[in-house]
């Protein structure tokens, strides 16, 4: 159990950076008037951010990942989250084992 001073500084810098991004959106909306265009933009944030995070995995990593994402998406239309995620993980493991 050691605590290196440089490591601690690095962790604190990461924490500070993360907290400032998480707070600043809240500060932002307190200082702007929310008109129709802001509402349109804010409504689009969840799908736009989520897609940007998963796009390289879904479309540019390999066939196993692309097919498993498709299987997960299809499953999510019928099954609860845990079942869909389990199905996706099993699909990617099987496809990788099969050499995709």
């Amino acid at each position, binding site marked *: *159990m*050691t*605590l*290196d001073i*440089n*490591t*601690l500084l*690095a*962790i*604190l*810098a*990461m*924490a500070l*950076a*993360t907290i*400032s*991004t*998480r*707070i*600043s*959106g*809240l500060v*932002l*909306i307190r200082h702007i008037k929310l008109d*129709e*265009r802001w509402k*349109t933009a*804010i*409504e*689009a*944030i*969840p*799908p*736009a*951010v*989520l*897609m*940007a*995070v*998963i*796009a*390289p995995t*879904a479309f*540019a990593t390999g066939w196993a*990942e692309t097919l*498993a*994402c498709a299987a*997960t*998406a299809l499953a*999510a*239309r019928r099954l*609860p*989250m*845990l079942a869909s*995620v389990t199905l*996706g*993980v099993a699909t*990617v*493991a099987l496809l*990788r084992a099969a050499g995709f």
Partner: protein
Amino acid sequence: MLQHSRPTGEFLAGIRAIFPLVVAVIPIGLVFGAVSATKGLSALETTLMSALVFAGGSQFVAMDIWMHPASWIGVGFAALLVNIRHVLMSASIGTKMQSFSIIRRYAAMLFLADELWAMAEFRAGSGRLTPAWYAGIVTPFYAAWVGSSLAGALLGAFLGDPAVIGLDFAFPAVFVVLVMGFWKGPETGAILATSGVAAVATHHFVPGVWYIAAGALAGLAMALWKGKVREQAA
């Protein structure tokens, strides 16, 4: 008693809602702990990082670029870049926190990990987002992330490669499920397509994690453009 039952019920409902994500985050935390052990971090340092930063994506990126001695400028800037999307997330969920006092809003933002944010957005879309419900999703998820990071750091090399059994895919799979939940018709499709294409193109041509910000902003631009077209048609 009656006064207590409603927040308690909300808290328990939050725990039930987050349960699948708690299950999904444990293997990821174990992997993070094991990776950080190979980079020379002690179990205490790993646990501190998970507890104070509490942002998986930026923690993995930090492990990717970790040096000895640690460079606070390098990992601090990387964390800022990876987490810049949190500005958008916090702006979005902030408009749905009417039942939170100002102090609670800021306190809630400290725990705005992707999974918690997405679940809160989902809740706000189908009902009312309350502080007790939010506390219910944060508490077990935070405990699971910090606890599994510690366990991973202690178990270290015993864990083996998670890619063999597909566990590295749990996190993208959760996001795929959540994306499907935000579908509201063709306009969502346009936003998703724009964000996806921009993210993949940026990921291909620009090193680092700029692809997340690029994809998110492209999706937003598409939404604004569609909104303008709709305004003009009306």
